[in-house]
């Protein structure tokens, strides 16, 4: 496979926090265009840190990250440009509370990409329509439910027309009845061919959406497998133990 078939390549990434232990150790993996990779692993194993490194929210100590075959870790990175290609959605939504839904999703396109209000507005209405929130266009975040906020946050990221989307436990803060509406949006993105890296604790969802499961423990990849294989017969004892947490028997 030639180099450019990979949208995202991570090579020998090392990440540690000041004074702390290493969080990611000699970490390498690649994501193909259109691939959906779900990252699983116990709490504290470095899932969020990995996504944050890819988006430049955390400095790394060694290794390279390539996007479209171009290094984004060589110190010359124009993060403002790179981040337009990488959409990120957080557990805590982090919508801008002083702006309406529409202003939230237009901020990036207008101020960063210099698009016109007409053009971006049309794109924004289309996306809001797709996630079923067009009528909330002029609402403020505080007037929305958690599930609605998270769908707006996804639209805000999509507005930049990213090449890859990163999701960090985007349903973890939601009431159970709202989880579905958010996951459905992500499933639809997968059907549309969006490249995605998803951290989640929703096992059914992971199984349904993933092309590949990446199981991490202590900052390293322990298993990388198709979902049927990973959930059907995990190879390592650590993965088995992890999956047992989600099993209930009477």
């Amino acid at each position, binding site marked *: 496979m030639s180099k450019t078939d990979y949208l995202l390549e991570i090579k020998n990434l090392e990440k540690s926090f000041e004074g702390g232990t290493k969080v990611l150790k000699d970490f390498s993996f690649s994501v193909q265009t259109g691939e959906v990779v779900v990252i699983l692993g116990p709490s504290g194993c470095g899932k969020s840190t990995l996504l944050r490194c890819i*988006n*430049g*929210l955390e400095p790394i100590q060694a290794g390279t990250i390539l996007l479209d075959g171009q290094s984004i870790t060589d110190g010359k990175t124009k*993060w*403002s*440009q790179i*981040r*337009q290609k*990488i*959409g*990120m959605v*957080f557990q*805590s939504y*982090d*919508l*801008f*509370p*002083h702006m309406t839904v529409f202003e939230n999703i237009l*901020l*990036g396109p207008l*101020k*960063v*990409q210099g698009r016109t209000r007409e053009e971006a507005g049309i794109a924004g209405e289309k996306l809001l329509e797709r996630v079923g929130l067009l009528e909330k266009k002029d609402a*403020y*975040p*505080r007037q929305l439910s958690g599930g609605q906020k998270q769908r707006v*946050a996804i639209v*805000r*990221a999509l*507005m*930049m027309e990213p090449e890859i989307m990163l999701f960090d436990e985007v349903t973890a803060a939601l009431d159970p009845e709202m989880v579905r509406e958010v996951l459905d949006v992500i499933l639809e993105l997968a059907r549309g061919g969006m490249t995605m890296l998803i951290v989640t604790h929703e096992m059914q969802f992971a199984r349904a959406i993933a092309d590949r499961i990446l199981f991490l423990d202590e900052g390293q990849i322990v298993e990388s497998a198709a979902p049927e294989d990973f959930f059907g017969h995990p190879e390592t004892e650590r993965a088995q133990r992890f999956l047992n947490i989600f099993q209930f028997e009477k």
Partner: protein
Amino acid sequence: MDWNFISEYVPMYIQAAWTTLSLAFWGILLSLFIGLFCSLTLYFKVPVLKRVTAAYVELSRNTPLLVQLFFLYFGLPKIGIVISSQSCAIIGLAFLGGSYMSEALRSGLESVEKGQVEAALSVGLNQGQIVRYVILPQAVSVSVPPLCANIIFLIKETSVFSVVALADLMYVAKDLIGLYYKTDEALLLLVLSYLAILLPISIAASVLERRVRYAGFGN
């Protein structure tokens, strides 16, 4: 009570009130800029600058305006820097107010959640845009009550301007008492003048505070 005296000197008080108000206006405006600059250097922990700012804040908060004015008006000329009374008043007020405004804005800045910055970074905004579109609007609305309190505090502090030979309200009142011994009348006019300035501002401030509270975006 000598009502004739009062009506005769009302115009003089109005004149002095304008002096007080216009000096206060420029001093406060300047203090807002100083406060904004200082609060941002502290919030972003700008190397070196944050130390300078911290030292300024301590100096400014722990010396009375009277002493600051003495320094500007009587001290600086000794090293060859002569500043007009008006400038002294404005600079003094701005020097004092800057630190108070800085603290008020800093509390607002610190109330903005960290996730806001990361969300803004994630859509590609740069530092300047994040401050302008995301952080400041939220910080200022949280800071409105302390900012208003500071404005009222600073207007009251202008009552020491007379020490640098400015014909402000205090100056006029002291003058009239000295000249005519009409203490009651002069003081009544003085109190009424300050009320006439401060009451409308107080009321406007509480209306504004209520509005930002209702608009309060929290969750």
